[in-house]
């Protein structure tokens, strides 16, 4: 058993890669990962990746921002220290609310945008001093790399990948 073995199949075209992914999927092999230099449309669906929920996160973060702005304006302008500013109503938040709309809007956007991006960075493990994990430096230039796990079927898999117009096929021992 050599379960740590993977095969790296390298392609130089996105359409060829898509066809290869289809072929490998159809013959029921497990694709560990695909590294591409740019977003290839439809690849995530083909790989069967579940849809990302980051947009839902952003919506919830936006609600937090809105709630925070509401609380902040109410606490500072109405509860803690009401002042007469140009005769604007300072006894109830709802009457003073029109003046707070810009703040509420900005904080909604601020929270939604920043927290979503932070969530994205955390989930995709992106931060300063993080080591890159693409196995071949060319995958950020013009090479598309498909990593297929080997399960005692190295020869069969290599033969299959050879039919998919790969420019390079490498068997790698992963540690």
């Amino acid at each position: 058993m050599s379960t740590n073995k993977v095969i790296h199949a390298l392609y130089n075209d996105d359409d060829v890669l898509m066809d290869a992914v289809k072929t490998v999927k159809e013959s029921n092999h497990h694709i560990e990962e695909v590294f591409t230099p740019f977003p290839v449309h439809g690849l995530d669906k083909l790989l069967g990746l579940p849809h990302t929920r980051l947009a839902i996160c952003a919506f919830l973060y936006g609600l937090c921002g809105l709630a925070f702005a509401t609380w902040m304006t109410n606490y500072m302008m109405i509860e803690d220290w009401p002042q007469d500013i140009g005769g604007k109503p300072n006894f109830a938040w709802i009457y003073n609310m029109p003046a707070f709309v810009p703040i509420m809007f900005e904080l909604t956007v601020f929270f939604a945008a920043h927290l979503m991006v932070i969530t994205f960075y955390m989930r995709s493990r992106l931060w300063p001093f993080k080591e890159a994990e693409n196995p071949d430096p060319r995958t950020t230039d013009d090479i598309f790399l498909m990593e297929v796990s080997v399960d005692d079927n190295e020869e069969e898999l290599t033969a299959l990948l050879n039919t998919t117009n790969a420019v390079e096929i490498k068997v790698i021992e992963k540690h």
Partner: protein
Amino acid sequence: MSSHYEAPIREPLVLGEKSYHDITMDIVKPIEGKANKNWYIAFGIALVAFMWGVGCILYTIGTGIGVWGLNKNIGWAWDITNFVWWVGIGHAGTLISAVLLLFRQKWRMAINRSAEAMTIFAVFQAGLFPLIHMGRPWNGYWVLPIPNQFGSLWVNFNSPLLWDVFAISTYLSVSLVFWWTGLLPDFAMIRDRAVKPFQKKIYALLSFGWSGRAKDWQRFEEVSLVLAGLATPLVLSVHTIVSMDFATSINPGWHSTIFPPYFVAGAIFSGFAMVQTLLGIMRKVSNLENYITRLHVEYMNIVIIVTGGIVAVAYASEFFIAWYTGSPYENYTYMSVGAATGPYGWAFWSLILFNIAIPQLLWITKVRRSFIWSFIISIAINIGMWFERFDIIAIVLSKGHLPSTWTRFEPTFVDVGVFVGTIGFFFVLFLLYARTFPVIAQAEVKTIMKSSGQHYKQLRDGKNEH
């Protein structure tokens, strides 16, 4: 491939026979190569201007803002003019990357990176002015809603000036993360090519370890889309709120309900003009002629005509309403017969000439598709939009309600110095950016190669035209 089909009638967005690797090479060339003499000359000039500005700012802070030309009637003068001018310029970047993304305009990909860089650098300059105008910038943090004992209590959330603090800081920070997220794959590309260890380390740090997995790209695209959706109303809100600095006051000439849409249109107008100015130079200097084409220039010029048209109609409406009120006071607002014939007539007519008359040349197809004409007209618009803000501030304030308070504003060398200094600072940042950052979103451009690249279009159409 049928999935890459695009109507043959559409002009290609990327010229020449480019492979994916060719795009990489074109983008990294200015970064891996050496700067030429022109770059050093331009950088030297910008640095000197910046240093002069730093000197003038230090003099202002050391002595007080009495060294400026403003007075008790014209309390907002050059500084706020410059502030609004820079914020306006900072509008095109996020507009290009956000609004045009939502509308799926592929031509944005060649220009969005530099436009966003311009946005961020311009907002830096804008932020300097209110800070210096405070006189005691070390107290700048008083605009933040923090618990305090120094008697100013909480900040005033009823004030448009405070809305500005929130709007501009949100805009700056969101634009920055939007820009940076888009930069990650491109930094990773430079990192993976770098041979010098120091360069590799720096780009590895900047790229946050981007690896380009299928899942990363899925999230990347979702994040870009949602950020675009958030940034679109954000862009519009920022200049709306800047206009409220004026519109919520009770000065005739400022107290105007059309200010928000009119300011937003003016901001996009001036922002696109600055993009034309910068990219007009950059496409030559960085050899990006195949990416920033006549078509891109024409599209930007169309945006300029539309937004310039909105601005012109707003001027006409302001002028008409001022006259129609029959109020003698309205005859001294910035759009009035009084302004056109008064002591600031030269500023009034500069505005009309640079902002309304000259941009009309863009109706002519030949002018609209000409690099040199677009460049000249964009400079005119930059000047015109500065005069717009100067007119709104200085002309309106120069003739207050009491004739005994009527006065004039004369800028001092410090006013001019600080302004020139911010232009220098802006170009210092932009020139450094042009040498160290991937100036075109290469990962995105690669996605449109098969649909909009000239070579692929010709292959698909089965003929060799051009």
